[in-house]
C-alpha cells in the first residue's frame, strides 16, 4: 500500500431507529433519497470530488443492502488499485471480537486498516446527512492551523441549537468547550458530525479511550471532551451551504422536497460536483396522455398516468390513471393504483396502494395538532378503499376498506 495523505472513515453502522419502518430492513445510509440516490452517495461523492480516494465504510446494522449497493465502489470511481472503498464489518480476532460499541470504538477496531495507508490525516464521516462539501478545503484549514482536530460546524438558529452538539469557540475559531444538546446554548455552531484528526493524535486518544472502562467509546461524548481536557488544539470549520440531517421521517421528507424548491441551493446536476449513484440501466420514464405532472421529480422506469404535484418518484414507480400523489415520496417499485390518493406520505419500496385507498392528510385540513407524514413500510399493501390517516407508520398490510 502506498502512503495516503488522508483516509476517510465513514460510520455507517447506525440503525437509524427514528426512521422506523424505513430502516426495518436496511441501514440508514442505504435509505433512498432524491429519486435515484441513497444517503451514502453524498459522503462518497464528496470524498471522490474532494480528492480522497481511500474510504473505509464501517457497517454493523443490516449491512446486506448497503454492501450490495457499495460493491466495488465503481459508481463513485472508488474501485482503485491502491486505496478505494473498503467495507469494514466487526470481526473476530484471536482473543475473540466485539460488535462496534460506539463510533470511537468502531474506528479503534480498524486502526490496522488506517495504518496500512500510513496517512497524516483521518476524516471521520457519517452516513446520515445530505450535503455537498469540499473536504479538501477543510483539510487545508486543518493543516494551516496545525490543529489536532477540526470539526465542521453549521451556524444554526438559537432555537435549533439545543438539538445539536454545540461548539463554544474563541474568536480565532478554536474550541474551548463542547456541549451536547445544551438547554441554554452559548453558541449556535452545531457539529455536523464531520471530523478531521491528525492521525497520531487520533491513534493516541482512541487507544486511551479504549483503555477507559467508563467510556461509552463515542466521539462526541468521550473522545472530543478528552482531547479538550488535554488542551489539544481543536478548531471549527465553518460550513454555510445546504446540509440536512435526515435522521427522522419528517426531515427525510423535507430534504427530498427541498430538491423541488428553487430557493434552496441543492443542485444535484452540477457537473463540477456530481453526486454519483449506483444506477440500473432502466428504460426511460413514460408520462401518459392522462397524466398531470407539476413540480415533481421523476426518474427512469416510472410510468405515470395520474396526477402528481410536489412529489418525488423513485425508480420503477407506477402511478395509475386517476390516482393523485401530492407532497409525497414514492420509493422504488411502489404502485399507486387507480383513484388512490396519497398526500404528505412516504411510500416505501415495492409497496402497493390499491384502488381508491387514501394515505396521509393535508395539515391544513386535518389540523397541525398531531399531524405528521404517513409512512407505508416496504412491500406492504394498503387495500382497496382503505384509509391511512396522517402521521401513521404502517408496518403491516392494511385490509380492504380498513381505516387506520
Amino acid at each position, binding site marked *: 500500500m502506498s502512503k495516503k495523505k488522508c483516509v476517510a472513515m465513514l460510520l455507517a453502522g447506525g440503525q437509524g431507529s427514528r426512521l422506523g419502518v424505513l430502516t426495518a430492513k436496511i441501514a440508514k445510509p442505504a435509505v433512498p433519497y432524491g429519486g435515484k440516490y441513497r444517503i451514502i452517495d453524498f459522503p462518497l461523492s464528496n470524498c471522490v470530488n474532494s480528492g480522497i480516494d481511500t474510504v473505509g465504510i464501517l457497517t454493523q446494522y443490516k449491512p446486506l443492502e448497503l454492501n450490495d449497493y457499495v460493491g466495488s465502489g465503481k459508481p463513485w470511481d472508488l474501485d482503485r488499485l491502491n486505496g478505494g472503498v473498503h467495507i469494514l464489518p466487526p470481526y473476530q480476532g484471536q482473543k475473540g471480537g466485539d460488535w462496534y460499541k460506539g463510533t470511537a470504538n468502531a474506528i479503534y477496531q480498524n486502526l490496522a486498516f488506517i495504518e496500512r495507508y500510513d496517512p497524516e490525516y483521518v476524516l471521520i464521516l457519517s452516513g446520515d446527512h445530505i450535503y455537498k462539501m469540499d473536504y479538501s478545503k477543510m483539510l487545508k484549514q486543518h493543516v494551516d492551523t496545525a490543529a489536532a482536530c477540526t470539526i465542521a460546524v453549521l451556524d444554526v438558529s438559537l432555537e435549533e441549537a439545543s438539538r445539536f452538539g454545540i461548539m463554544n469557540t474563541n474568536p480565532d475559531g478554536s474550541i474551548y468547550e463542547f456541549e451536547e444538546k445544551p438547554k441554554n446554548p452559548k453558541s449556535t455552531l452545531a457539529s455536523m458530525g464531520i471530523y478531521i484528526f491528525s492521525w497520531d493524535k487520533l491513534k493516541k486518544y482512541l487507544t486511551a479511550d479504549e483503555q477507559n472502562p467508563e467510556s461509552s467509546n463515542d466521539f462526541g461524548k468521550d473522545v472530543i471532551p478528552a482531547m479538550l481536557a488535554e488542551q489539544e488544539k481543536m478548531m471549527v470549520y465553518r460550513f454555510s451551504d445546504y446540509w440536512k440531517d435526515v435522521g427522522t421521517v419528517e426531515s427525510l421528507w423535507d430534504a427530498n422536497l427541498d430538491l423541488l424548491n428553487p430557493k434552496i441551493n441543492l443542485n444535484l446536476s452540477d457537473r463540477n460536483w456530481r453526486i*454519483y449513484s449506483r444506477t440500473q440501466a432502466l428504460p426511460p420514464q413514460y408520462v401518459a396522455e392522462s397524466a398531470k405532472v407539476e*413540480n415533481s*421529480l*421523476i*426518474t427512469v422506469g416510472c410510468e405515470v398516468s395520474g396526477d402528481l404535484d410536489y412529489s418525488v418518484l423513485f425508480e420503477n414507480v407506477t402511478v395509475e390513471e386517476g390516482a393523485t400523489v401530492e407532497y409525497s415520496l414514492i420509493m422504488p417499485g411502489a404502485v399507486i393504483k387507480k383513484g388512490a390518493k396519497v398526500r404528505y406520505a412516504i411510500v416505501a419500496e415495492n409497496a402497493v396502494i390499491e384502488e381508491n385507498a387514501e394515505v396521509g392528510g393535508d395539515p391544513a385540513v386535518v389540523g397541525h395538532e398531531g399531524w405528521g407524514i404517513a409512512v407505508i413500510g416496504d412491500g406492504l399493501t394498503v387495500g382497496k378503499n382503505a384509509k391511512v390517516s396522517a402521521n401513521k407508520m404502517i408496518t403491516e398490510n392494511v385490509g380492504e376498506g380498513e381505516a387506520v
Partner: protein
Amino acid sequence: MRTSAVAGIVFTNVHDETMEQLTEFRSMAAVPFGARYRLIDFPLSNLINAGVYNVGLIIKEKYRSLMDHVGSGIYWDLDRKNGGLHLMPPYNTRSARRYNSYIEALYGAIDFVERCNAEYIVTYSAGIVANVNLAKAIESHTKSDADITVVCHRRPGLADRSIGLNIDADGRVTDVFAENDLSTLGIMIFKREVLLRLVRQAYQNDATDISPKDVAAMIKKLRVFGFCHEGYAAIMHGKESFYEANMDLLDANVRHDLFCKDRPILTKTRDDMPTRFGTESVVKNAFIADGCVIEGTVRNSVLFRGVKVAKGAVVENSILMQGTEVKAQAEIDHVVSDKNAVIGEKMVLKGNDQKTLMIGKKQTL
C-alpha cells in the same frame, strides 16, 4: 452448453449512408435512440442476455462516439478476462483490403473468429431495434443441426415484393425470393467452420457480398434454417424509419416488449439527476430520460438526457437528443434535433407528417 460456445460479431457501420445527418459524425451503431440508448445497445444486450459474452465489433469509420459509448464494455458486463468486448477497426496491412464490403469486413475479423474457441458465431447488423430472444434462436440452431440459422420476422406490407423467405414445416429455408412478408432481420447464426469456409471462399473469389443469388445456391447445399422473432422489430433505414421507431415507444405494447424485465436492454449510464417538472409544465404522452428540466409543454415526444424545455415553450411530435435546449416561447413540431441543439426564444419550427425537420448537432437556431 458452455457459454463460450457462442461468440458474436456486430457490424457497426451498416447502411450508415441511409441515415443522412444522423450518421454524419457517427456510425449506425452509435445513433442515439429511445431517449437514453444508442442502437448498439440492442445487439449487445440481446447477446449477453443469451449468455454470449464474447463479442467483436466490426468498425470501419466514424467510430469515436461508438468507442466513447461502449468503453471497456462494462455497462453490458462485457469487461471480461475470458471473452468480453473486442473492437476491430480496419487492420491495414499490404494484403488486407479496407472494409468496403460485407465480406472484407468479415475477412478482417477472421482472426477473431479463428481464435474465439466458439462453435457458433452470431453475426448481427447494428440498426435493428428489437429485443430478440437469441438464446432460443441459438437453441433452435443447435437442435436442428443447422449450418446457418437466419433470424426473420414478419413485415406486413412487404408481401408483394419478392424478397420473402419460405420456410418448410421443419423450419428449413426453401426459398429466398418468395412473395410473402417473412423478411430477414440482419441476424444470423453460423457454425463457425461454415462461416470460416464461406468467408475465405468469397474473399478468394473477390466477392464483395453474399448476394441473394449466392444464398439461393447456399440453401440447396447447406442446412439453412429460419427462426422467427415474434416481438417488435424496427429496421433503421433512413430518417423516416428512425422517427417512426422512436414514436413507436409511446405505445405501451412496444415499450413493454422492447424493454421486458427478463431481458433488459442495457446502456451506458450517466449520473444525471432525475427529470424535474416545473410548476407550469404540461406533459402528455412522452418518453423521457433523466436529467431533463421541463417547464413548458411537451406532447407526443421523446426526450433524451438533459433536454431543457423552458417556460412557454411547446414541443410536439418531436425527438430531442441529449442536451437539446428549447428556449422560452419557442414552438416546435415534427422536429428531430441532434445533440446539444438550441432552439432560440420564440422560434417557430414546424414540420408535418410528411416531413420532419432535422436540426444538426450543436446547431443553434
